[in-house]
């Protein structure tokens, strides 16, 4: 299922764009959550939470799914595979868990944004949820930075599945080479 080089580059470009875009949007989310939690001006606080809801639904959620999908295409369409290398497995886990947690997190985002839309939020209103928004966003940012780091450094390490596959393909190549040599005239 290997992609040709042009298609591989296109898929890689898409994956990088969506993944780094997701990271950038989470960074914005951290800023908005900080403003919402610590802002003095009621209008600014309200705007921050309304912007968070829009950012989450229209940027974070689509980009998280796009990153996951393009990551799967990249893994399955190249020699890297999905379960052969530990760094790929970890990136997949990070992406899936982060996407699921983001969807769960949307309830809190919606609740706080809804409250902000209905009335001015006093500094003591919904403190737990507002702190959670900031903490979750900061954790997501850290986790996505780890994912980017794994992508760049690609630390070595084959899983058992990858190790088995590699040795089987070596054995096949050795056998083919032996048979080819045996067919050569003396």
């Amino acid at each position, binding site marked *: 299922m290997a992609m040709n080089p042009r298609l591989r580059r296109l898929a890689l470009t898409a994956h990088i764009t969506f993944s780094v875009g997701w990271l950038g949007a989470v960074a914005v989310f951290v800023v908005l959550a900080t403003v919402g939690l610590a802002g003095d001006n009621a209008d600014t606080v309200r705007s921050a939470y309304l912007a968070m809801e829009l950012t989450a639904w229209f940027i974070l959620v689509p980009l998280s799914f796009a990153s996951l999908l393009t990551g799967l295409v990249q893994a399955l369409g190249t020699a890297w595979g999905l379960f052969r290398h530990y760094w790929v497995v970890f990136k997949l886990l990070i992406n899936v868990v982060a996407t699921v947690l983001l969807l769960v997190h949307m309830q809190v985002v919606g609740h706080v944004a809804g409250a902000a839309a209905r009335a001015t939020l006093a500094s003591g209103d919904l403190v737990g*949820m507002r702190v959670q928004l900031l903490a979750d966003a900061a954790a997501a940012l850290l986790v996505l930075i780890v994912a980017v780091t794994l992508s760049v450094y690609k630390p070595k390490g084959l899983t058992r599945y990858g190790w088995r596959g*590699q*040795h089987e393909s070596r054995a096949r190549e050795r056998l083919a080479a032996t048979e080819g040599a045996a067919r050569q005239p003396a």
Partner: protein
Amino acid sequence: MADSPSRFDATDLGPGPVAHPGMPRWVKVFGIVAGSALLVAFVLMHTIGGGMGGH
């Protein structure tokens, strides 16, 4: 994933079956750190608590 993996990710030890060298150290460290972070986050969310997810 700009570069393809090298043909052999581990040292070529010659013909014949070779045992899997085991999990690399960075994977173990990463797993321990990630697991600890999740545990700490879980404990924090439940002890700090009533406020988290509540009003």
